[in-house]
């Protein structure tokens, strides 16, 4: 139980025993399925990522099904969040940035719900492991370059050369390293903030478990929301930087 007492530990063991009985004849044929639920301590970030994804999909389905002109509570909250995101997107990327709204909104909402869920005892935030963050950062990295190539064609790579053509041998390695540092910094920033606040909470709970964790929990909520905001804002700035090259 190296990540603490998680709800997964109470669910996975009985479920894995249940599946072992059913999958007995199949497991002989597919030995790779042996640790499907019993080894789930090794891939809890995947399990909890799916958990938060299912929560998001359920929230969306519940809102859209009963959509009204005078909104109920859930619809009101989601409208505030989505309209705030849309205003931020239009401020940062301009009107033609709305085509990227699904990606930005998904990233923001998933990181927000994943970060906040980790504060609840019994749950774990998948953003506290580097795997999830690296996945999202690599998606953003490839997205920016593909958008740049799609809008500008092959001349998009001319901006690696820099303003003066004879500085190319110096500018090209610097630009490449700078571009490769972007997904690394996105990953590390999110991982460091969320895993760091987990560890600080553990240390405070060991030292003074009564009343002192409360301001720490407030700080955790603040940094969770802030990191979701920063990740999506940086994604918007990278995409808008790829869109507006060398005009």
């Amino acid at each position, binding site marked *: 139980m190296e990540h603490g007492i998680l709800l997964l530990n109470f669910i996975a063991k009985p479920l894995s025993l249940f599946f072992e009985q059913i999958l007995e004849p199949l497991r002989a044929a597919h030995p790779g399925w042996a640790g499907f639920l019993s080894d789930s301590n090794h891939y809890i970030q995947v399990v909890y990522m799916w958990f938060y994804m299912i929560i998001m999909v359920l929230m969306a389905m519940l809102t859209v099904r009963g959509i009204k002109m005078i909104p109920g509570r859930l619809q009101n909250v989601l409208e505030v969040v989505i309209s705030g995101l849309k205003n931020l997107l239009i401020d940062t990327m301009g009107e033609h940035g709305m085509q990227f709204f699904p990606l930005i909104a998904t990233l923001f909402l998933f990181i927000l719900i994943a970060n906040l869920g980790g504060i609840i005892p019994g749950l774990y935030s998948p953003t506290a492991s580097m795997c999830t963050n690296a996945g999202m950062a690599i998606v953003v990295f490839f997205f920016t370059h593909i958008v740049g190539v799609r809008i500008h064609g092959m001349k998009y790579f001319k901006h690696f050369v820099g303003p003066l053509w004879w500085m190319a041998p110096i500018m090209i390695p610097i630009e490449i390293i700078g571009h490769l540092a972007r997904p690394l910094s996105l990953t590390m920033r999110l991982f460091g*903030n969320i*895993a760091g606040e987990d560890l600080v909470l553990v240390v405070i709970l060991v030292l003074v478990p009564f009343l002192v964790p409360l301001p720490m929990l407030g700080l955790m909520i603040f940094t969770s929301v802030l990191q979701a905001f920063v990740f999506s804002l940086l994604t918007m700035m990278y995409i808008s930087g790829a869109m507006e090259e060398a005009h």
Partner: protein
Amino acid sequence: MKKSYRMMGFTAILVLMGSSMLLAAEAPASPEAIRFFSWAAVAAGIGIAIAAFGTGLAQGNGVRGACEGISRNPEASGKIITALILGLAMIESLAIYTLVIELILLYANPFLKYVVGA
């Protein structure tokens, strides 16, 4: 009366959750291992101290610029605060990189197998 019981129960749950999160480090047997771990702890401490020092200076500069901007033009405070929060998060991430290296040094040290195995 009920509210304080609820709060104490919540804190007790948090203590239970958190107390089992301590990673059990392997007990070093040899004096070389103890020396190695103590030097790793010193390195981590000095690294984080320098990173926190630089972050404090940089974020203080950022907040000063934001306060001056708001005092000159209170109507633009929304945009200034947005830019301030973004800048603070970017500067903070430099200290977070140092924290990640420190966590690697303390909990996932790549030279561990040379020291403990000996």
